């Protein structure tokens, strides 16, 4: 995939190759001919391989360090609380894959069998695949990864992504878009320095027509373990995620404050756990309705 010009309408959009921004782009002819995304054979291969995955949720943030990987892990754990739901967590943060550490799987390796890469199991119904398991390789990994992972029958695939709107983003969105992504959850912290990067992420999602399930505000409130009073570690001087979501007409899924532990197990009644459960429920509802919408489109 060649460089994307500013204002690129998207390789598979109706304007592909025809927009004003397309002038001078090396892909212009390709896009105008309608060949766009279909040109890359890997897209079809991935689509085929990933057919057995029912729902795909991408976890994004424009900003690093907001707790995207932590959230992804919690979302995966939360969905996997139901033993009958099979969940896969895919970590494609080539810059700094955190999922192995967060899920306690550092040092594990993925095994390659005849049918592809087999993930590492955290629970019977929760499997993890991370670029961190593959060692220090870069470039071209995502494509191969997605193509060669042996997914099996999965209900939910949670994809933890690198921060910022980088080429890694475009790669994964391009490949998975062909196989239909249910939507993206975008993580932020309350302060404006995060929100300003997250607005870019939201704009990126709109541009590539990726549905936004909603925004999660992390590190919202600190509850002192000693005096139990609440305070704000990162004051939301511009109204936090709530104000941003209203401005941009994007759902706010919830606010959490976590300390990087799995508090489903350790603190099942804590406010943070309740917030997570609500977020997970809304994510499931979104995916459920997304699926029936797709079926409607297919039938109509």
């Amino acid at each position, binding site marked *: 995939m060649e460089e994307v010009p500013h204002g690129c309408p998207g390789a598979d959009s109706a304007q592909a190759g025809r927009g004003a921004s397309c*002038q001078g782009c090396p892909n212009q002819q390709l896009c105008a001919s309608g060949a766009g995304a279909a040109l890359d054979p890997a897209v079809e291969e991935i689509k085929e391989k990933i057919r057995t995955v029912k729902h795909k949720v991408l976890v994004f943030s424009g900003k690093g*360090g907001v707790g995207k990987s932590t959230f992804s892990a919690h979302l995966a754990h939360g969905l996997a609380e139901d033993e009958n739901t099979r969940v896969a967590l895919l970590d494609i943060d080539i810059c700094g894959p955190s999922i192995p550490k967060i899920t306690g799987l550092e040092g594990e390796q993925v095994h390659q069998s005849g049918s592809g890469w087999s993930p590492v199991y955290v629970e019977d119904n929760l499997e993890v695949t991370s670029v961190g398991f593959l060692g220090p390789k870069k470039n071209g990994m995502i494509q191969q990864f997605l193509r060669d992972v042996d997914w099996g029958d999965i209900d939910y695939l949670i994809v933890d992504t690198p921060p910022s709107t*980088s080429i890694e983003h475009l790669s994964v969105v391009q490949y998975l878009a062909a196989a239909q992504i249910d939507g993206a959850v975008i993580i932020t912290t309350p302060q*404006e320095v995060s929100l300003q990067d997250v607005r870019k992420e939201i704009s990126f999602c709109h541009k590539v027509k990726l549905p936004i399930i909603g925004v999660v505000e992390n590190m919202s409130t*600190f509850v002192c373990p000693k005096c139990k009073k609440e305070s704000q570690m990162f004051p939301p*001087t511009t109204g936090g995620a709530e104000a941003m979501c209203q401005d941009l007409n994007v759902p706010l899924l919830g606010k959490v404050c976590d300390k990087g532990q799995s508090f489903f197990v350790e603190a099942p009644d804590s406010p943070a756990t309740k917030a997570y459960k609500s977020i997970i429920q809304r994510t499931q509802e979104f995916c459920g309705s997304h699926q029936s919408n797709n079926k409607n489109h297919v039938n109509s």
Partner: protein
Amino acid sequence: MTSSEGWRCAQPRTSQTRFSLEPRNLASVQHIILVLSGKGGVGKSTISTELALALRHEGKKVGILDVDLCGPSIPRMFRAQGKAVHQCDRGWVPVFVDQEQSISLMSVGFLLEKPDEAVVWRGPKKNALIKQFVSDVAWGELDFLVVDTPPGTSDEHMAIVEALRPYRPLGALVVTTPQAVSVGDVRRELTFCRKTGLQVMGVVENMSGFACPHCAECTNVFSTGGGEELAQLAGVPFLGSVPLDPDLTRSLEEGRDFIQEFPKSPAFPALTSIAQKVLQGMPALLS
């Protein structure tokens, strides 16, 4: 870079037409410090900003070059968002934050028409802009140029190290948060420094504990000790721990001078101490 890409000002002529390898625009910059981190969100821009403010309070002239092209945070931290970048015969004029021109800034944030639009570029284009930021910004006389980088070790890092290599002594300041997840990434960053011949001035551990404003009990929300441990293991100086401080956050959000306005705040002693160590450490770096 064409006009279709939403640039707010005309482009200076490229290095090829004017500057070639001559370090004219950086000739009067005494020291260059790269602020790095393996992990995102640990506070590189915060530390860059506060270091600049603290150095200014010691009477130094400081420039900040923000090469985080995807998430440029520096303009806002000085209440400079939306300011225009002008040109002179030597290239772009950096944006001054005060009348005394004691702190000057350059960031892609000043150059974008729509700040909420994502900047999605491949390596070559990012590299080209970074080279221009190095050779085509008329910094003038500076005691320090602080370079704020994006997280990780990416195209931008390679580009900035290569572009700066011919110039003044280059030091790297590595920022981490205390927990192990962050420290693992920082180890990679230190490897990058070693491989590219960047001298590591020291490690700063940020978000090191949160003092409850109600009862003053300090809780290590992001665990503790990782930064110091890492510095010891890597044989580099540990410059200090900066606690989570809502006044610091608020000050950055509003583009205020934390060092001037919040001397009693929890983060103040740590930040000023780090600046002192940087000042003291410079002769060692030069030898």
